[in-house]
């Protein structure tokens, strides 16, 4: 009887531990409100991703999140592909901020707002430009570029 209650107590402790661990990891999963929006496909030379003040060296397969900044050094270039199949690449000495990227077909929500601070960029539209033609924009220090399902390149002198 005594022995039995001891094993029950042990079992209870083990279960409590499991629940505790689950609750921690579960919370960690749900706390991650900014989903992955793009992935690095090509890198050459110096290329980095700045996320919440941290600089991460860009490697093929690196996940990109909303609000990330993509930077290339004077010898660098990089290409990424977004969740909606939009592809984008930067030439040397470039800087681009992802102000907004929303691709939620279940809710019918689409938006791309990028800020090209300086350098050269190549862009090939994905689904968002096809489904919601007015929802893709790149801001530069001098102008706003509206994109309707297409491929284009831009050079931004910067400030």
């Amino acid at each position: 009887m005594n022995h039995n209650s001891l094993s029950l107590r042990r079992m209870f402790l083990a279960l409590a531990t499991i629940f505790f661990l689950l609750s921690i990891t579960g919370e960690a999963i749900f706390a991650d409100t900014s989903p992955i929006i793009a992935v690095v496909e090509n890198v050459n030379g110096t290329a980095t991703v700045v996320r919440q003040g941290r600089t991460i060296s860009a490697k093929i397969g690196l996940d990109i999140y909303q609000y990330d900044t993509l930077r290339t050094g004077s010898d660098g270039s990089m290409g990424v592909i977004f969740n909606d199949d939009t592809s984008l690449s930067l030439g040397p000495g470039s800087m681009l901020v992802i102000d907004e990227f929303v691709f939620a077909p279940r809710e019918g929500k689409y938006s791309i707002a990028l800020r090209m601070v300086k350098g050269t960029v190549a862009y090939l539209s994905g689904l968002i430009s096809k489904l919601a033609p007015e929802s893709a924009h790149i801001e530069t220090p001098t102008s706003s570029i509206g994109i309707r399902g297409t491929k284009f390149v831009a050079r931004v002198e910067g400030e």
Partner: protein
Amino acid sequence: MRRWRKAFFVWIFLCFLTGCGAHRAKRDLIVLLPDPDGKVGVVTVTTQGGSQILDKPGYAVEVEVEDLNKPPIAPHPVEEKEIADIFGPALSMLPDSGTRFILTILYFEPDTTKLTHESKDLVAEILSTIKSRRSGEVFVVGHTDLVGNEAYNTGLSQRRAIYVRDLLVSSGVKPNTLFVSFYGKARPLVPTLDEVPEPRNRRVEVIVR
């Protein structure tokens, strides 16, 4: 006199080297290119001073960096070599178009849920795409052109989307993998004035993941 002449030539020579006087204005440059599938889209460039539309491949719009109140400079053709010189490194890193999604657009006869003749043939393709991808997510999005009022068109776009969904379900696609939405006249693919009939806007988009 001789000396002055010499000084003058030296000055000219120095100007030639440094480009003095001919201060080249800094300009941003935006160039439209053809899509890989040959289609060409549209880019609009807007500054505080105005805007320009780019709709021809190989054409560029320039923007004066030092005077933001100027409108962009009207589109002009750019040589391929210049594009390659400036954008070569960026273009070489541009990933191939992604293949996460396959979009098919089905078109309808005016004011009906009847597919156009060409679009009927596309339904079989959609079905084989769903099968080959074993897709668990298919989005069906209904639209209309700008003829008629909003409420009526919302209803019409809904009927079109449901028609396509039912068509897919009757061909064996699981209903719980289909997500229907509809926007009436709110999201024309080709912008037109109100009340303008436009075949390319009478559509249902089917997106297979």
